[in-house]
C-alpha cells in the first residue's frame, strides 16, 4: 500500500512538472481489455499476456506473425528426439538490478506451472519438459518423456521472472513491489480500471524503445474508445469496431493498421447424440435421428453459408473467408482446402439426398459479447440456413451464460447446445492446437477434445494427429498437420469454418504498428513513422 501511495504521489508530481516537450515521449493507448494482474503467471489470457510482455521477456519471443525470435535465449535446438538445448543471453539484468541466469529460468518454469492461485495456468506450456537440467549458468537442457516438437513454441509463451522473488504472488506483483522482469518497461502505477503506467527500462537488452512512458487506459466500450481517439485523449487504440473502419480510412488524422489474426470463427454440430434437444423435424416434432450425424447434412450447411455476404455486410469487409483452421502463411496449413463455394441450390439438393427434402428446425446458439460481431453473424447464418429449408432460430447470450451450457465434459456430459458458433485463436501459431482441442476425440488423459463441442470423433484423424505431435522434423510435421486438417475439416466436415478475424488498430497520423496475428497490442512496437 505504501508503495502504491508513493508511486501515485511521484506520478502526480511528475504530471504537474511535465513540460509538453516531454509529453511527446509519452504514448497513451486506449485498450478494450484490462489485465487482471501484473503477475505474468496468474492468468494465461490475451489481455494479461499482452501487458506482461512489456515488463517481462521470454526465452523465445514471437514476432507479429508469430514466428519465433531469440529472446532471453540466443539459440535453441533439439539435441535428440527428447532433449532441447537452450543457450541463454549473457549480461541481462532484471529491473531490480540482479543478474539473469539459468536459475531464473528454472524458477520461472516451476512457478508458471504451479502458481497456486492461477486462474488459468501456464502449465500447459511447461509440462512437456519433465526435466530441466542446468548445464552451466547460461545453458539449459529441456528434456521431455516423449518426442515433443512444440517445445520451442510452448516456451515462447512463458514469461521469465526473477528467482529472488520467491513466494511472491499476484498481489505483490500488482502493487509493483515484486514485478521485476527483464522487459523494456518497468511497472509505474496501476489504478485498476483507470490507468496503467509503464516507464522505460534503460537496461533493456533489446532495442531501446522510443517511448519514455506508455500509459494504458482501459476503455471497454468500443464507441467510447474510438471517441477517445478522435477527441485526442488517447494516441492509439485496439479493437476498432468494424463498422467504423470505412469512415476512418477517409479520416486523414487517423492511421489504421490491419491484419489477419490466428482466430477462426466456426460452427460446431452435434455429431454424438441421437435425440438432440434443439433439433426438431420440419414441422416441429422431436427428432429420432440426428441430422448432423450425416456428413451430407453438414456439407449442405457448409454450402448454404454465403461467406462473402457475411464478410462484406456483417464484418464490413474486415474478415477473410475461411476454409480451414488457420489463414494463409501459417505453418502446417493445407493447400487443398479452398474456401467452400456458396451454392444454396446444391445445398438444398444434398439435403434432400440425405432424406430431408423439407429441411428441419434447429437452434443456433452463440455468444453476443465474445467475438467481433458474433451475434450478427449468428443471425446472418440463421437467415441463410432458413432459406435452404433448415429453419434456424438464432439464440445469442452473454458469454458467461453461453459457455456454461456450451462446455464439453465428454460423452457423459456433452454441451447442452447442439449447434453453436465459437471462435478459436491458435496460441501456438500452427494447427495442432485447434485440431487437438476442437476435432480430436475427447480424452482426458491425452488432454484432447476439451473444446470439441460437437463431440466429433474420427480415429483416422486422431492417428495422423498423434503422429504429427511426435514428429520433430518440421517438414514432415507440417505435412501431417495438413493431412489431419484435410480429414477433419475437409472430408468429415467436423466443424464448419466461417472466416478469420481481421484485427484493426487505429492511431494518430504518424504512428505505425505492425498488426499482430496474436491480436496483442504491444505499446513499444508502436513507432512514430519517419
Amino acid at each position, binding site marked *: 500500500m505504501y508503495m502504491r*501511495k508513493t508511486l*501515485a504521489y511521484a506520478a502526480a508530481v511528475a504530471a504537474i512538472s511535465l513540460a509538453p516537450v516531454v509529453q511527446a515521449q509519452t504514448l497513451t493507448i486506449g485498450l478494450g481489455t484490462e489485465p487482471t494482474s501484473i503477475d505474468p503467471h496468474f492468468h494465461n489470457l490475451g489481455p494479461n499476456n499482452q501487458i506482461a510482455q512489456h515488463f517481462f521477456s521470454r526465452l523465445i519471443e514471437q514476432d507479429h506473425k508469430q514466428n519465433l525470435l531469440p529472446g532471453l535465449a540466443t539459440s535453441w535446438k533439439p539435441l535428440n528426439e527428447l532433449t532441447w538445448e537452450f543457450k541463454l543471453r549473457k549480461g541481462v539484468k532484471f529491473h531490480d538490478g540482479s543478474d539473469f541466469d539459468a536459475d531464473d529460468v528454472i524458477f520461472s518454469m516451476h512457478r508458471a506451472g504451479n502458481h497456486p*492461485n492461477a486462474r488459468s495456468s501456464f502449465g500447459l506450456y511447461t509440462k512437456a519438459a519433465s526435466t530441466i537440467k542446468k548445464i552451466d549458468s547460461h545453458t539449459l537442457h529441456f528434456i521431455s518423456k516423449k518426442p515433443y516438437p512444440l517445445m520451442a513454441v510452448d516456451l515462447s509463451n512463458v514469461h521469465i521472472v526473477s528467482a529472488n522473488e520467491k513466494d511472491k504472488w499476484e498481489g505483490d506483483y*500488482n502493487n509493483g513491489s515484486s514485478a521485476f522482469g527483464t522487459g523494456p518497461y518497468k511497472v509505474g502505477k496501476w489504478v485498476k480500471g483507470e490507468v496503467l503506467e509503464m516507464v522505460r527500462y534503460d537496461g533493456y537488452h533489446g532495442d531501446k524503445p522510443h517511448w519514455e512512458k506508455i500509459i494504458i487506459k482501459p476503455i471497454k466500450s468500443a464507441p467510447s474508445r474510438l471517441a477517445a481517439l478522435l477527441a485526442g*485523449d488517447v494516441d492509439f487504440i485496439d479493437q476498432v469496431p468494424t463498422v467504423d473502419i470505412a469512415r476512418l480510412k477517409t479520416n486523414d488524422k487517423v492511421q489504421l493498421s490491419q491484419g489477419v489474426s490466428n482466430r477462426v470463427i466456426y460452427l460446431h454440430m452435434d455429431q454424438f447424440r441421437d435425440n438432440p434437444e434443439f433439433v426438431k423435424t420440419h414441422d416441429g416434432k422431436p427428432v429420432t435421428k440426428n441430422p448432423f450425424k450425416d456428413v451430407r447434412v453438414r456439407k449442405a450447411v457448409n454450402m448454404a453459408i454465403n461467406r462473402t455476404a457475411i464478410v462484406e455486410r456483417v464484418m464490413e469487409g474486415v474478415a477473410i473467408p475461411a476454409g480451414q483452421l488457420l489463414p494463409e502463411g501459417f505453418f502446417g496449413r493445407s493447400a487443398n482446402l479452398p474456401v467452400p463455394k456458396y451454392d444454396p441450390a446444391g445445398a438444398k439438393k444434398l439435403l434432400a439426398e440425405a432424406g430431408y427434402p423439407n429441411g428441419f428446425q434447429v437452434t443456433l446458439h452463440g455468444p453476443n459479447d465474445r467475438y467481433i460481431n458474433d451475434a450478427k453473424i449468428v443471425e446472418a447464418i440463421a437467415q441463410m440456413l432458413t432459406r435452404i429449408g433448415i429453419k434456424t432460430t438464432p439464440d445469442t447470450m452473454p458469454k458467461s451464460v453461453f459457455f456454461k451450457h456450451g462446455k464439453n465434459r465428454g460423452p457423459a456430459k456433452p454441451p447442452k447446445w447442439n449447434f453453436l458458433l465459437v471462435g478459436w485463436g491458435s496460441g501456438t501459431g500452427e494447427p495442432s492446437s485447434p485440431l487437438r482441442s476442437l476435432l480430436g476425440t475427447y480424452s482426458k488423459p491425452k488432454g484432447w477434445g476439451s473444446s470439441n463441442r460437437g463431440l466429433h470423433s474420427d480415429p483416422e484423424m486422431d492417428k495422423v494427429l498423434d503422429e504429427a505431435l511426435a514428429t520433430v522434423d518440421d517438414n514432415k510435421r507440417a505435412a501431417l498437420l495438413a493431412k489431419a486438417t484435410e480429414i477433419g475439416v475437409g472430408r468429415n466436415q467436423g466443424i464448419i469454418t466461417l472466416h478469420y478475424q481481421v484485427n484493426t488498430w487505429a492511431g494518430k497520423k504518424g504512428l505505425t504498428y505492425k498488426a499482430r496475428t496474436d491480436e496483442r497490442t504491444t505499446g513499444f512496437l508502436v513507432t512514430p513513422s519517419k
Partner: protein
Amino acid sequence: MTVFIVRRLLQAFLVVWAMSFLVFVGVNLVGDPVEMMVNDEADQEERERVIKAMGLDKPWYVQYLHFVGRAFQGDLGKSFVYGEESLGIIVERMPATFELALAALLMAIIIGIPLGVYSGLRPGSRISKVIMAGSILGFSLPTFWVGLMFIMVFAVMLGWLPSTGRGDVVPIMGINVSFLTIDGLSHLFLPALNLALFKISLVIRLARAGTREIVHQDYIKFARAKGLSTNRVVLVHLMKNIMIPVVTVLGLEFGGLIAFSVVTETVFAWPGMGKLIIDSIQNLDRPVIVAYLMIIVLVFVIINLVVDVLYSVLDPRVRLQDVKA
C-alpha cells in the same frame, strides 16, 4: 436515541445478512466462472485445477459457510478475476464514485435551486413554463441516452470536452481526486452533469413547491410589508426555509446517485464502483458481486441513519422513533 441507533444497526445487520445469503446462492446459479477464466487451450486437467483453486469443487452450502466464517473476520473472499481481496478492490474504486456523486449533487443544487425558486416566484411567466417543461424532460430522459448524446455532441462533434475516463488525479490524504486539475475537471463535467440531470429536475420541483408554499405565509408577507427588498426576502427567509426539505431529500438521494452512477460510469468509462459491478456481473466475479452488495447496503443504512439523526437535530418537532427504516 441510542436505543434507536442500536435497533437500526441490528436491523441493518439482519438486512445485510439476508441479502448476502440470497445473492450468494443466486449468483451461484448463474453461469460458469471457470469457463470465463480459463484459456481456450486449457485441457481437462487444467480446468479441474482452476475449479479447485477457486474453491468451486465444494457444494454451495459449504462455500457459503466458508464465506460466512471469513466474513466475520472482515474477509469477503478473493475476487475470481483479480485474485485479490474483493473488499480492497471495491474500496479502491470508492473515491471515484463518491467524487462523481458529490459533483452531481453540487450541480443539482447550484442549477436546481435558482431555477426552482424563480419559477416558484413567477409561476405564470414564460421562462417558468420552460423551466417546468425542462424538468419534465429531465425526469423522462433515460440517463444512458443523454450520456450518449453528450459524448456525441460535446466530445465528438464539438470537441470541447473529453469523452471518457477520469483524467489527471491528485492525491489528497492518499485519496485520488480529480477536481483539482483542469484535466480532471474537464473529465468530470459531462458525467457529473449526466448523473445530475435527474436530480436537477427534482430540486427544481422541490424548490418551486417550497417557494410557492412559503411566499404565501405570513412572515414573508410581513417582511415584505415591512419594506424589505424582494431580493433580501427571497435570499434570506425563503432560502432558509426551503433548504431543510431540499437538504433532507438530497441526503437521501445521494444514495440514489451512487446507485445510478452504474449507468453513467458505464457510458463514460468512469473507473468507479458502478463500472466495477457491471464488469463483475459480466465476468461472473461472484465474490465481488456479493461484497459490493454488502458494502452498498451498509452505505445506504449509514446515509439513512445520518439523515434521520440530522433531521431530528434540525427540526426539533421530529422525534426519533423506529418508524422509518
